[in-house]
């Protein structure tokens, strides 16, 4: 592109040359324009992201000596040592949250993909179903959702107790645990459904037509066309779901941090957050590394 422009440049006379700053090639000008476009974000990154991020890391390795002036004193891994050796709640809460996230994330992904595929079909009342499945996003990501799910969600789906006895106690526990979880999980998958829907819509219908002509079944279509093409969205949704459950207001670690905040134990709260974040980040990186090999890339764009 840039070369093409450069070749054209000498032909254009007065007006274009005037606009160019002297001694600047098209390429530099283009990159300057690009930087101009991201300038607001660059400023924001420095002020609202990098500075707090670094302060927060420093804080997690320090002791807050004066609240007013925000003076810190380096004390090494003292805060972290407290979390692992003295705190009675941090490790159990941490493990519980990790377990929940690991169970919830695959369920969310599978269900939201299924729902997105269902409402992507040519069915009657598509608009109605789409609105219904997006409703939880409207109703709240925070307090309102907690109120609704907290008080109402016991036993939407129940299984007859005879059936439960028939399938054995341990398996029954698993099933009931799954069912009690499923409403909450489904309710938190509105955005994922939307993203999958966007992805499914982007797949060209001619691909399906071609494969139907070649005699492929719908089952084969799913594995050979749909899944590879939405795999980047699966990745995106995976990260989104992880972060969502990580920052959820019902998350025990988050409420611990908020508790630390209101008690003035800022350094301890920072170290709590950082250890948890580092762990989640590590999981995300591992999954990204593994899945980016499996996801289908549509060539260079």
């Amino acid at each position: 592109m840039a070369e093409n422009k450069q070749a054209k440049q000498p032909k254009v006379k007065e007006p274009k040359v005037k606009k160019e700053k002297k001694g600047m090639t098209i390429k530099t000008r283009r990159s300057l324009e690009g930087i101009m476009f991201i300038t607001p974000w660059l400023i924001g990154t420095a002020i609202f992201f990098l500075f707090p991020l670094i302060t927060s890391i420093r804080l997690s390795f320090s002791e807050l000596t004066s609240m007013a002036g925000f003076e810190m004193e380096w004390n090494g891994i003292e805060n972290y040592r407290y979390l692992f050796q003295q705190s009675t709640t941090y490790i159990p809460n941490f493990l519980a949250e990790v377990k929940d996230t690991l169970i919830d994330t695959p369920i969310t992904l599978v269900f939201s993909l299924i729902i997105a595929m269902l409402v992507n079909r040519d069915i009657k009342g598509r608009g109605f179903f789409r609105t219904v499945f997006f409703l939880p996003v409207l109703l709240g990501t925070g307090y309102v959702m907690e109120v609704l799910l907290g008080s109402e969600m016991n036993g939407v789906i129940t299984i007859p107790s005879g059936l439960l006895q028939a399938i054995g106690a341990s398996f029954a526990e698993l099933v009931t645990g799954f069912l009690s979880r499923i409403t909450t999980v489904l309710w938190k998958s509105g955005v994922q459904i939307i993203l999958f829907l966007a992805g499914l819509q982007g797949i060209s219908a001619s691909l399906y037509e071609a494969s139907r002509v070649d005699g492929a079944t719908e089952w084969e279509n799913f594995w050979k066309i749909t899944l590879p093409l939405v795999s980047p969205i699966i990745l995106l949704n995976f990260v989104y779901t992880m972060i969502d459950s990580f920052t959820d207001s019902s998350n025990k670690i988050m409420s611990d941090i908020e508790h630390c905040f209101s008690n003035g134990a800022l350094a301890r709260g920072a170290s709590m957050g950082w250890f948890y974040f580092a762990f989640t980040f590590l999981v995300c990186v591992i999954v990204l590394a593994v899945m980016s090999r499996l996801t289908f890339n549509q060539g260079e764009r």
Partner: protein
Amino acid sequence: MEKTADRAAQRAAEKAAKKAAKHVSVQNRFTKKHVRKFIVSVFLYLVLFDLAFVFLYPFITMIIDSLKSDADLVNITVKWIPSSLQWSNYKVAFDGLDYFQISSTFPFLGGFVMNSVFVTLVATIGHTFVCAFVGYGFARYKFPGRTVFFLLVILTMLVPTQVLIFPLYIMYSGWGWLNNYLPLLVPCFFGYGLRGGFYIFLFRQFFLGLPYEMEEAARIDGCGALKTFFKIMLPMARSSTLVCVVLSVVWHWNDFFEPSIYLTQAPKLALLPSRLPAMYAALNQVASEAEDIALNSNVVVNQAICMASTFLVILPLLIAYMFVQKQFMEGVERSGLTGM
């Protein structure tokens, strides 16, 4: 003679029967296919309605519970249909939330619903314009460090606010921004705030999918970069803009964590969702005074009023969404996330 005629007739009859059989078998095949299709679609609708029910259940119970009288709430046989509709619950909730009460600090804003509307609108405008701007830069220009910066955008999506909240709080208090809307609004104009990185990602993805011809034509005609963006590219991004606006409005409206940190000392500036816990506490106090028992503040006494107030909090969102629902879904479909 007769024999041959007979044979001919027989042959004709056989032929006809064969034809009929063939016809029937064709018809049968069709019906079988139809039956299969019918069963599949019945199954499909069953699954859809089941899922829809699971999604709607809390919402329906909220509306039903909000209209129940005290007697109905206690009576467990009354689950779906209240014996009488108690509209006064909404009156109590309306007053309890101070929905439209005039606040003295911002006389032009009436009540807590207006606080929420104000913050949500300003934040959304900031998010939409700035994230489209930045996303366009990432999608269309090559500059040194672009990949690194974009990875940084993704990182900002990953880092939760809770990790950054202490330094931010100290920073804002140093600038005198506490108990003010500034900490909620200003970051939005720099691509931060509530999930700013997500919108940048969204717009980048969209602009990547657009053809280059328009911009080239504009540039050859001497249109500057800024003008090209605002006059040509932004109007083309209507669908993505709508998706960004809807999500930003919804998330800002429901945001609870950050306002509860930054606005603690300014009850007049409180946003609508933050009013809920305060209202529950007030309700409990009234109830415990009346019954003279110490109640746990987490136990909500009057479920009906609680549900009515929750419904009132999300009502403006529902109304607003009804208007943009169709365009929003179209916008989602055109967002070009897979781009094939």
